[in-house]
């Protein structure tokens, strides 16, 4: 019998620094978009909104770190949910993440050009909408081509700019806290400008936008050398770094003494720094405006931070292209999406079809978001249909919905996997576990996962309560995807509501072997034998 031709697989070209850079490039840019929006909504409680979302994010990060190190495959969250909760939940989680990544591509490419327009006014969206649209379109198309050429090339690009960004943001933090931060101003601002409960919920739901990105590092796990040891190391640094930046910017915005007077608002009234950063004029470039107001360093920052912001946003958009193609690749391998999405380019060994399809989705979203500004007649229709929300705000709503939905499922999956697969070696575990015996085997219940689940479902509830359009459009995306999934599974003759048979143990051995984690593989096989002996069942590995 002839052997079937070997399916080309993703190559392991991402180094530890590259792994950090993939995650950082996504999350580091989020604060550039999120800061102004959160300040506009949560006012004097913006740092509390970032703190709540940040602590939830730490829980999410720890969950992803544990799971990505134990199951280093490209699917990220959707793979963990698929494995822990079954096919249909795996699809829902993956579909929510795909929504996020396609929006990520558009939202950050769009914002990238907004930041650049501070240096090149010809790109300003409000003055030249067609030019802005064309440039964003070209950026998305260019990133698609870059990603098809290969992960090493796009990864190297990410690594260099991420390094520069970390240095620069650390400098902003350092000079800001050393020369301009006053704790008494922070406390005064918080006391005087505390928002309504509705606005605080709105701000918190927007703050989670600033913490979307660990999905990238778990996807890079399949392309990382020795992921079980590398992923925990890079993830902990990443979690702390992004938490620090988000808390720093929000605390500085509320408690900083600017070195130049804040201009009066459009009505001639004096305004506080946080109001200035959160108004319509500056909320799209709040980080660069904040940096320019830091004593001594501000003069230099005003020159390069818009460019820095643009670069960060560009690599975040690139992470969206990378992430969406890898998730689609993994979902296709699990027969949650048609097999065309797992086709790998013969020369470059990258998932070319997935890249082009989801960049295509991103282009559709771009057109949707840009249409009101390109056509005045459509502007009136949008204003009526979307209750005054513009296209980009609508995408932001969906972004928060997709992230909160997928993260919620990941927490449940982590608990399920701890109980169902205790034999799987974990080089990293979330802290605070309660040991108990289940079917004769000792397992550990993760308390932090429950805390994280409660936190992220709160944020999902805040999103549904405070975002008029997101509460309809988000669930609609899930339902439409689910309908397509059911039709696909029925046509393929696969179980529609139940899961198909998965050889998880065999697959896990292969995953660990491919990852070069041979010690873990041996440990896994030994654990299987011991678990089966305890439970009186026959293993399949």
């Amino acid at each position, binding site marked *: 019998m002839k052997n079937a031709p070997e399916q080309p697989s993703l190559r392991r070209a991402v*180094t*530890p*620094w*590259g792994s950090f850079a993939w995650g950082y490039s996504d999350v580091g840019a989020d604060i550039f978009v999120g800061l102004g929006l959160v300040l506009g909504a949560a006012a004097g409680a913006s*740092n*509390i909104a*970032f*703190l709540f979302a*940040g*602590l939830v994010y730490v829980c999410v990060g720890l969950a992803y770190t544990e799971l990505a190190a134990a199951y280093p495959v490209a699917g990220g969250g959707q793979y963990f949910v698929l494995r822990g909760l079954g096919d249909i939940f795996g699809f829902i989680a993956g579909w929510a993440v795909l929504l996020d990544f396609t929006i990520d591509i558009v939202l950050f490419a769009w914002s990238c050009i907004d930041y650049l327009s501070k240096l090149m006014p010809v790109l300003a969206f409000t003055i030249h909408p067609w030019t802005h649209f064309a440039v964003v379109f070209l950026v998305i198309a260019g990133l698609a081509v870059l990603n098809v050429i290969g992960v090493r090339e796009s990864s*190297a690009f990410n*690594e*260099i700019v991420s*390094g520069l960004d970390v240095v620069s943001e*650390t400098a902003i*933090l*350092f000079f800001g*806290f*050393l020369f301009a*931060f006053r*704790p*008494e101003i*922070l*406390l005064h601002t*918080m*006391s005087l400008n505390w928002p309504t409960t509705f606005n605080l919920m709105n701000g918190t739901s927007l703050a989670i936008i600033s913490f979307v990105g660990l999905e990238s590092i778990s996807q890079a796990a399949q392309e990382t050398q020795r992921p079980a040891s590398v992923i925990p*190391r890079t993830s*902990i*640094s990443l979690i*702390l*770094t992004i*938490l*620090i930046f988000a*808390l*720093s910017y*929000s*605390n500085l915005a509320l408690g900083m003494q600017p070195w130049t007077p804040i201009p009066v608002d459009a009505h001639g009234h004096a305004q506080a720094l946080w109001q200035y950063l959160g108004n319509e004029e500056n909320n799209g470039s709040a980080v660069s405006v904040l940096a320019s107001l830091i004593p001594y360093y501000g003069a230099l920052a005003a020159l390069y931070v818009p460019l820095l912001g643009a670069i960060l946003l560009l690599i975040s958009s690139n992470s969206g292209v990378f992430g969406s193609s890898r998730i689609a690749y993994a979902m296709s391998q699990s027969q949650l999406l048609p097999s065309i999405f797992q086709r790998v380019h013969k020369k470059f060994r990258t998932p070319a079809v997935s890249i082009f399809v989801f960049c295509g989705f991103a282009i559709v979203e771009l057109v949707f978001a840009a249409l009101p500004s390109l056509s005045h007649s459509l502007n009136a229709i949008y204003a009526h249909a979307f209750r005054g929300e513009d296209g980009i705000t609508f995408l932001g709503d969906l972004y928060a919905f997709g992230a909160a939905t997928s993260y919620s499922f990941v927490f449940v999956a982590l608990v399920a996997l701890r109980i169902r697969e205790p034999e799987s070696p974990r080089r990293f575990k979330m802290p605070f576990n309660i040991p108990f015996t289940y079917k004769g085997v000792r397992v550990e219940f993760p308390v932090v996962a429950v805390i994280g689940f409660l936190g992220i479902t709160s944020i999902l509830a805040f999103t549904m309560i405070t975002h008029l359009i997101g509460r309809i459009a988000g669930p609609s995306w899930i339902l439409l995807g689910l309908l397509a999934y059911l039709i696909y599974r029925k046509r393929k003759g696969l179980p529609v509501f139940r899961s198909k048979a998965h050889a998880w143990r065999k697959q896990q051995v292969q995953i660990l072997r491919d990852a070069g984690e041979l010690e873990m593989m041996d440990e896994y096989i030994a654990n299987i034998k011991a678990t089966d002996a305890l439970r009186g069942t026959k293993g399949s590995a």
Partner: protein
Amino acid sequence: MNNFVRSETYARARLVSGTIMIVLGAMLLVGMFRQAGFDWKGLPGYVLGLALIGLGIVRYREYVLRKKRPSS
């Protein structure tokens, strides 16, 4: 880039930045405590200070591990 990340210069830069973070985090904790005391409004500042110290310690540990195992 990878060569630079593996170099001694990079390791020392991380050690220096880690030390700065620990100092900055400690200064922030003290400054916030002097103004806010046990008021919950000081919480974001305290968490930020602790996170800075935490990241500084992570970087310091990385440096020490690297010294012990130069190939890692």
